[in-house]
């Protein structure tokens, strides 16, 4: 069983969150470290998918007051507010002994198991709906493997693949946000308020078993922090990146 690092971060600004995830991706390529990072957002933040045009955010009125960042991963826009966000970074040298496509399934299945223990019956979307793939919001799209509660999407993930490493990050909606009032969360759909996050330990443990890794709590290295600060300044916090399309 491999040892992997678990980082839990307090809510932070969007550009910093994206910069840390990319710094971890670069670190995984160089050091081979597997890292699960669980984090949050210091204010409601709209993240655009890598290929989405910046101007499209104007069509979504409720999120116009939100800070906006552009992700390095694809897919639709996400309003990050009352949610659990994670990133998983690892080298692609087979250390996890999993195909990259399996990462979605593993993460989402462990969400399903953890939620089931809480009496919440989530399930995976069985088929991609091509007609919904152009929706602005990620949670209006339907891709095979997405996490659904009834017919509502409550969880999704996306990857950024590099030659030597991969980043997968994703979100699980706990509660409806005023910046995306059309999207219900687990609280509205099930009547269960999971915002105390006590259940997260169970999910982390379940994911460790699924990946066959043993988590060890850790923090960013000095080099990762330096790299994240640079990426926040020059990329994710910069209009040249956010408005690049």
């Amino acid at each position, binding site marked *: 069983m491999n040892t992997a690092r678990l980082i839990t971060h307090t809510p932070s600004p969007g550009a910093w969150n994206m910069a840390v995830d990319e710094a971890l991706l670069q670190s995984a390529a160089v050091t081979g470290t597997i890292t699960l990072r669980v984090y949050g957002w210091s204010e409601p933040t709209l993240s655009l998918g*890598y*290929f989405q045009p910046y101007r499209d955010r104007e069509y979504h009125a409720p999120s116009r007051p939100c800070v906006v960042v552009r992700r*390095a*991963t*694809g*897919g639709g826009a996400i309003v990050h507010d009352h949610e659990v966000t994670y990133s998983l970074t690892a080298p692609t040298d087979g250390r996890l002994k999993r*195909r*990259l*496509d399996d990462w*979605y399934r593993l993460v989402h299945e462990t969400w399903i198991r953890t939620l089931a223990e809480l009496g919440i019956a989530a399930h995976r979307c069985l088929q*991609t709906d091509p007609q919904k*793939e152009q929706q602005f919001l990620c949670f209006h799209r339907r*891709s095979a*493997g997405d996490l659904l509660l009834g017919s509502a999407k409550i969880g999704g*993930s*996306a*990857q*950024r*693949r*590099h*030659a030597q490493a991969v980043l997968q990050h994703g979100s699980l909606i706990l509660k409806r946000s005023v910046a995306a009032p059309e999207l219900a969360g687990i609280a509205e759909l099930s009547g269960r308020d999971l915002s105390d996050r006590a259940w997260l330990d169970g999910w982390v443990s379940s994911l460790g078993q699924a990946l066959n890794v043993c988590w060890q709590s850790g923090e960013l290295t000095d080099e990762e922090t330096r790299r994240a600060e640079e990426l926040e300044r020059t990329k994710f916090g910069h209009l040249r990146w956010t408005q690049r399309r």
Partner: protein
Amino acid sequence: MKPENLLFAETHEWAHIAHEAGGQVATVGISAFAVEQLTDLVYMELPEVGATVAAGEEFGEVESVKAVSPLFSPVAGEVLAVNTELPDHLETLHASPYDKGWIARIRITDESCLTKLLDYAAYQKQCAAAGDDPA
């Protein structure tokens, strides 16, 4: 083009080498195996005409429903042309990965990069080792 007549990078790009005007020009694309692995492609960003690329350098990107992946240049040189119709017709990559699905034509400036490319048999072996049969 038949895949048997192409060279392949370990990162799944192919190159067809032709002699033109005293030099070598590579037509490059991504393998049928890679297209199959990526599944449900939705966006592609092409390299810029006139750009200089190194072998193994990222020169484009492709997004599938769930992942953004880099495209790596299999050769070193100058980008002469790109398949501008491809991003609007990504289904071509599935239907014709080795012909109509070409991505760029690159004038090779350093022929030594070709020695690092695999022939089709070696590439098939690599794909099989990854746990799947190459298409």
